[in-house]
């Protein structure tokens, strides 16, 4: 039985799907007000975090569509990238060259790891979320083994990167000395207002073109146009513009992010993309249709791992220091929570959801600590609150997803009975 396409039902459905997003939105607003931090500081922080994390969050999309849930094993892709960065620093490569070499080293490493991860996940179909979680822990142990013992003793490294007086790689690697920090970001920075105008311009022009050639529905055109116009207007309100005074947009990074969005959308239109979707919807049916399910899942994970590795390079070069033993630890968790906040579910994710999720998640992250201090007089509480949010979001998303598919199944079986 089909649902009647009445507007009322659509809004209800929309709300149910995006309840986490709206809760986060409301919480963010409350916390921004409570924290008492100046707006321009908050916006500056948000922009930095977006720059750092967008790429990684976007890399989660393909495995979700392939039905493998949240790929927490992107931590391993991050580790591969860190090995690349370590070698780049060790060989004293500077600037963009260093970054490119790291990225190059990441590809074979992350692909190999992705292959192993995928093979293992194929053995635990149905438990991928937990499997990738534990795999991340295990890989962390192997990573420590590599960095603490193998690199010091078996594979010699220069003194720039090793702990003085002991074996193993240093805790913190400074990227500023090699001008690796901001190597990608610093290529070109423009002020937020410039970026806003350019992007709005592109969107409006593109929308008009697509609408004129009848390739975009009128509803979409008006929503898009309306939103863009709204943003422009809001920006010019008296108290908004100065808040963005400090915000600069690193062009190259966002171009990369944009390319990844296009890649995500584009690959879905290829045959491989169709296979991803088929496997994601129903493994058995996909198998009967002649798709090699294991191979498709493997490719999805390999892609995701390599992309996450590159994302980690962007992350580190923005931050400027590489915390050797902890930079990769929370990557999977934060990215997973972020994409779920954006409204994605265990088997459905889009670029837009990833971007919105990243924005909301990190906004709350920025203000949670201060809000915690104000509300409870204890900054550590804010700290823990952030972690609670991460896990809570994932738990709620998982519960809701299962609850809904359960009710849907019940409805179907009731109808069939």
């Amino acid at each position: 039985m089909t649902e009647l396409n009445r507007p009322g039902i659509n809004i209800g459905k929309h709300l149910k799907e995006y309840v986490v997003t709206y809760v986060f939105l409301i919480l963010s607003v409350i916390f921004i007000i409570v924290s008492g931090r100046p707006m321009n500081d908050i916006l500056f922080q948000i922009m930095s975090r977006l720059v750092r994390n967008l790429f990684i969050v976007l890399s989660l999309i393909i495995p979700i569509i392939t039905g493998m849930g949240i790929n927490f094993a992107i931590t391993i892709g991050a580790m591969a990238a860190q090995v690349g960065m370590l070698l780049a620093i060790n060989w004293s490569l500077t600037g963009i060259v260093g970054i490119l070499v790291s990225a190059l080293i990441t590809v074979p490493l992350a692909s190999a790891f992705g292959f192993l991860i995928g093979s293992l996940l194929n053995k635990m179909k149905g438990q991928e979320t937990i499997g990738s979680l534990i795999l991340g822990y295990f890989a962390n142990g192997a990573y420590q083994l590599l960095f603490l013992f193998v690199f010091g003793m078996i594979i010699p490294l220069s003194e720039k990167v090793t702990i003085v007086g002991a074996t193993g790689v240093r805790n913190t690697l400074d990227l500023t000395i090699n001008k690796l920090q901001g190597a990608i970001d610093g290529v070109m920075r423009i002020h937020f207002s410039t970026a806003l105008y350019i992007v709005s311009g592109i969107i409006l022009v593109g929308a008009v073109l697509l609408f004129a050639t009848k390739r975009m529905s009128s509803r979409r055109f008006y929503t898009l146009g309306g939103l863009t116009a709204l943003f422009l207007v809001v920006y010019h309100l008296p108290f908004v513009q100065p808040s963005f005074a400090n915000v600069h947009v690193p062009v190259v990074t966002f171009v990369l992010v944009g390319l990844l969005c296009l890649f995500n959308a584009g690959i879905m239109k290829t045959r491989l993309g169709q296979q991803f979707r088929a496997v994601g919807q129903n493994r058995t049916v996909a198998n009967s249709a002649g798709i090699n399910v294991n191979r498709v899942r493997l490719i999805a994970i390999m892609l995701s791992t390599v992309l996450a590795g590159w994302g980690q390079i962007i992350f580190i070069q923005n931050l400027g220091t590489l915390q050797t033993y902890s930079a990769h630890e929370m990557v999977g968790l934060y990215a997973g929570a972020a994409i779920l906040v954006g409204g994605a579910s265990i088997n459905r994710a889009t670029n837009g959801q990833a971007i919105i999720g990243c924005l909301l998640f990190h906004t709350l992250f920025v203000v949670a600590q201060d809000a915690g201090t104000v509300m409870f007089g204890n900054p550590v509480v804010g700290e823990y609150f952030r972690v609670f949010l991460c896990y809570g979001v994932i738990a709620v998303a998982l519960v809701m997803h299962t609850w809904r598919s359960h009710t849907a199944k019940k409805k179907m079986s009731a109808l069939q009975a």
Partner: protein
Amino acid sequence: MKIAKSQKIIASLVFVIMLALLAAGAVGLMSRQQASTFNTLDEMRSYSVMSAAHQPLVDQYGKEANAKAYEHAQASGFSRNQRRDYVLEQEALARKDALEQLRPGFAKDSPGYEQAILALDTKLEEYYLALHAEEQAFLADKGKEAPPVAEPAPEQAAPAEGAEGAVMEAPISEDDAMRPVIDDLTGFEPSAALTAQKEAITPYADALLAEISLIHPSLTPEMLAGARQQVVDAVRAKGDNFKTIYDRAVAAGADSLLTGRDPLFMRMVREAENLLYLAFGALALGLSILFYKQMVKRMGTPRFIILLFFILLIVLAGLYNIAIPGMITNILQRLGMYGVLALAMLPGIQSGISLNMGMPIGIISGLLSTVIALEMNMTGWGALVFAMVVGILMAIPVGYAYGLLLNRIKGSEMTVSTYVGFSYVSLFCIAWMLLPFRNPKLTWALGSGLRLMHNMTGNIGGLLDNFLRFNVLGVSVPTGLLLFLGLSCLVMYLFERSRKGVAMIAAGSNPAFAKASGINVDHMRIIGTTLSTVIAAVGIIVYSQSFGFMSLYMGPQQMGFIAASAILIGGASVSKAKVFHVILGTFLFQGVLAMGIQVANAMIDVSGLSEVMRILISNGIILYALTQAGGKGRD
């Protein structure tokens, strides 16, 4: 099941090797008691004593060469580095030459010399026995204090992204706290009788040195005086046995004394224990090759592999001289510690909610009740009983609510419960900071909020462990702990056979059929979940009192995984489990972990390795268990 011909051949070969090793080891051990072996060893010892006595002479040659080389280097105009290298080289060469020249003389002896050694040896033996007895008495008087709190292993993790990491102090790692206590002899004062005994040895030592100078006039009394302590030690050092005497002698070059087959024979006698360990390993290997198919069929590949790995670790532990009694004590303690927590998984699996990864929910109830008991300064058995009872009472409503949640998400319980558990842990991290606890023993010095770890000594630490503790063959058995584990298993076993239990198991194994039989499946699932939560609450109390520390905040997070993999390794699946699986699985898991860490430490002596090995081993086992669970689990 048929055994292939190749299997039989290879197994036979392995068995032959095993028999050879066994024979060699047995002969070796027995020979240690024989007179002829003693004689040979005495000869070797005399040699090493003589070698020790000649050290000052060798040193003198070395010094002369050093001085000559120095002059030569000055005259030839070497740079400082060149001179230093040259001098050292010349000295080393001179010492080597001297040793080679003097060596034949080491074998010289006289009846007087031999007698002097024997007399000195007897006196030393008596002295060391008395010393050992007094030291043991001293340690026993000191009593069982809490193991010295080890410095937290230097956490390599620095806060990520600025101040995002936990601001708390690094928790004490489990291995540090459970490391076998090295006997701490600080403050030991020898008694007057003992000191007198030590003095009485002097004339015997002098007599020996006199005999030596008779045989080798070139050794002046001054030289011999300088070598006195080494000579005494060469006769007998503290804690000597066949192996140490042999090793010392060989280091001095005594095997040149032996001719013919003797060197090999003595070597065999020395390595006797290791040969027996290898024989044991060969036996296991042969049996597993022979009965490979049958064993895999009976216990599944992962358990088979883990069993083999376990045996390998035992052999390695023996070869690396890791004290077996200490290790067995360690494993027994871990068995009791983690056993009840693993037991908590049982009712969950049986009632059909697969692995209860939300176990942290129950664990936190137990932690909360214990903290309340500590807040009120309760100690001893009263505190323990209070903590358990209150913990159970608090766990019941929480478990019930959790069960209601699980009933809504049938089919994905494992994944969802993991994150529900994690969220609950994080929520309580906030709670631990904000709840109104006032006891200064529990809270941070500077502000409010509970500390990360709490020392259990003085309140409930070791209560169950030390109850009726006894020692056998060097193994210290934590009787109370194991009794409690046995009791809990018995209760579960009886429950399985009660009416409610049977209904619960029926609901878990075949919900449709159970429903048709009139069993309320949802209700049974809730019972299973609540029971699991309650057992988890009790389990963490048992764990904390045994471990000696209670860790709040992020501590409970990993417990679910450990318990889950323990029961899976024991042979359970996500839908079927028995009490036996709990015990076997915990034993295997903890056994492999404990031994693996110690063997790894013995094999590669690098600090910090044990922590990494622990992460690798425990997570590796969990992964392995999960792949098995995934295969048989419901989709």
